[in-house]
């Protein structure tokens, strides 16, 4: 029982990160119908920039802010330079563009920073907290809490603010949004900035636990993508559920079956879900019009 609780804690921690990456996928997908495989690189950038500015002597909160800001700028640049020029391209082309962009960002990071693994100090010490018969690191609480805050914040942003509603409107029907006077180009920019910032925040939060290196993005992008798909692409609730579920699956498999195959089980579950529900758990069923 205690072991189970322990696995659930670690699953939720990892799952919260996956949920944030999946959320990043979702926001960009909604705005532009693009699955951005460079999403994992935002997490990497968030961690790396924080590490390097922190080691240069800046206080941690400021370093984190700079990292999030710079990563957002990278997100906006990605949209302007790679996604917008390819508007309307087929899915395969878009996949290659964003994978190409992710390889590019990774290559740049390896030159600007280095190829080492780095860590950050935990925000509130490393003293494990005893909870429900298991222990949890304070940093895990930071990760889970941070993810929850982001989801609540975004929920409020999308439902309570005019800008948020405009983003949703653009996602729903680009042309109609333009007709009612929404600057859809700006909404795209905003979506990329937001999604990059969320990725960077995930990177900042998780680096004290998992370390950061220039090449952590690929695995995160795959997991985040899988989580987003599991929940149903384009649905923020789905991103949250998909991310947490995936994290839990992994932790439970690692705990009870085989730590080597924890990621395998995650992908098996995803395949199973897609076979039964080809649109994901929260995805809408589309009827083809002819």
């Amino acid at each position: 029982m205690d072991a189970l609780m322990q696995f659930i804690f670690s699953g939720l921690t990892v799952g919260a990160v996956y949920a944030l990456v999946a959320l990043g996928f979702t926001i960009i997908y909604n705005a532009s119908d693009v699955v951005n495989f460079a999403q994992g690189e935002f997490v990497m950038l968030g961690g790396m920039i924080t590490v390097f500015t922190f080691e240069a002597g800046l206080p941690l909160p400021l370093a984190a802010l700079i990292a999030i800001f710079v990563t957002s700028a990278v997100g906006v640049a990605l949209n302007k330079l790679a996604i917008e020029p390819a508007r309307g391209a087929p899915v395969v082309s878009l996949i290659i563009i964003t994978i190409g962009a992710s390889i590019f960002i990774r290559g740049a990071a390896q030159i600007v920073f280095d190829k080492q693994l780095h860590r950050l100090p935990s925000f509130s010490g490393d003293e494990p907290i005893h909870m429900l018969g298991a222990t949890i690191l304070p940093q895990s609480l930071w990760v889970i809490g941070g993810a929850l805050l982001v989801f609540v914040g975004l929920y409020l942003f999308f439902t309570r603010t005019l800008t948020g509603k405009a983003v949703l409107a653009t996602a729903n029907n680009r042309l109609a949004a333009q007709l009612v006077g929404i600057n859809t180009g700006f909404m795209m920019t905003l979506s990329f900035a937001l999604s990059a910032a969320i990725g960077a925040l995930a990177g900042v939060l998780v680096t004290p636990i998992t370390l950061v290196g220039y090449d952590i993005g690929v695995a995160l992008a795959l997991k985040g993508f899988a989580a987003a798909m599991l929940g149903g692409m384009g649905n923020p609730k789905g991103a949250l559920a998909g991310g947490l579920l995936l994290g839990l699956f992994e932790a439970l498999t690692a705990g009870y079956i085989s730590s080597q195959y924890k990621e395998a089980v995650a992908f098996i579950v995803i395949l199973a879900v897609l076979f039964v529900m080809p649109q994901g758990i929260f995805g809408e069923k589309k009827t083809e019009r002819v």
Partner: protein
Amino acid sequence: MTCRRKWIQISIIAAIMLVLPFFFPSGYYYRVGALVFVNALSVVGLVILVGYAGQISLGHAGFAGIGAYACALAPTHLGLHPAVAILLGALISAALALLIGRPILRLKGYYLGVATLGFGILVSMVLSNERALTGGPDGMSVPDLGLRSLLRDMGWRISGGEFWYGLNAVVLLIGIWIALNLYQSATGRAMRALHGSEVAAQTVGIDVPRIKLQAFVISAVYASVAGSLLALQNGFITPEVAGFMHSVEMVTMAVLGGVGSVLGATLGAAILTLLPQVLTVFAEYEQLVLGLIMVLVMIFLPRGLLPSIVAKLRGRGE
């Protein structure tokens, strides 16, 4: 495409294959050429799946992994000749593609992407984790094909590089010939038809799931044979052959050259295989340049290099 155009395309590639060695400054280049041909072979298979039938696979390296490890494992464990192991690998890949193809190919777009991606990752994970059998991430050695010593006994002495250059060239030509045959056949036309409109394809009697499955199985066999040849010529194999990045590389080669065109796919394979060789001087910048090329080609030459060039030339000609 007429029969004549098919043979023109094959002749062009064969001629290039024959002429190139005269410009090789050293024996090393035979190795590079052999690698280009192996990659081109798996990419021609992807052209059938992606270019003809319009389906995506982000996990095709999984089949290359099966082909590669069949050649590494079957000779030692089953006592099979490596050449037979190539066939065994192709058979296993085809069977697996047949098995997972039905449910996977019901999916569309990104969902198909994630499902195939999941399949590829599962294969590479098994290869990395079953250390007792595969040696894990460190890889394992692959026995010699034995064909070269046979040639030597017959009095034909050629270097390893030359041998693999020749063998892979022949296999690639056969692969291209088959792909071009398919293009102008009823099955190939059905693949291209469902690419254009699935619902219209159905109304002319095309069994869409079945044809998709055929494209998937055929392309899996291509990838598997390519994986086998790669393993045999390197004499060593690691699970990276089945990894996500290898799948991405394959799709990129196909799309870079022009995914609808067999000739273009070969060109794409050549460019992306040669690029790292050229860039070894700037090893640091390799990823940077690779990523940049992928993005730029897709933005400025969305149909791929070869079709875009052909379209340009035609435009000028008229």
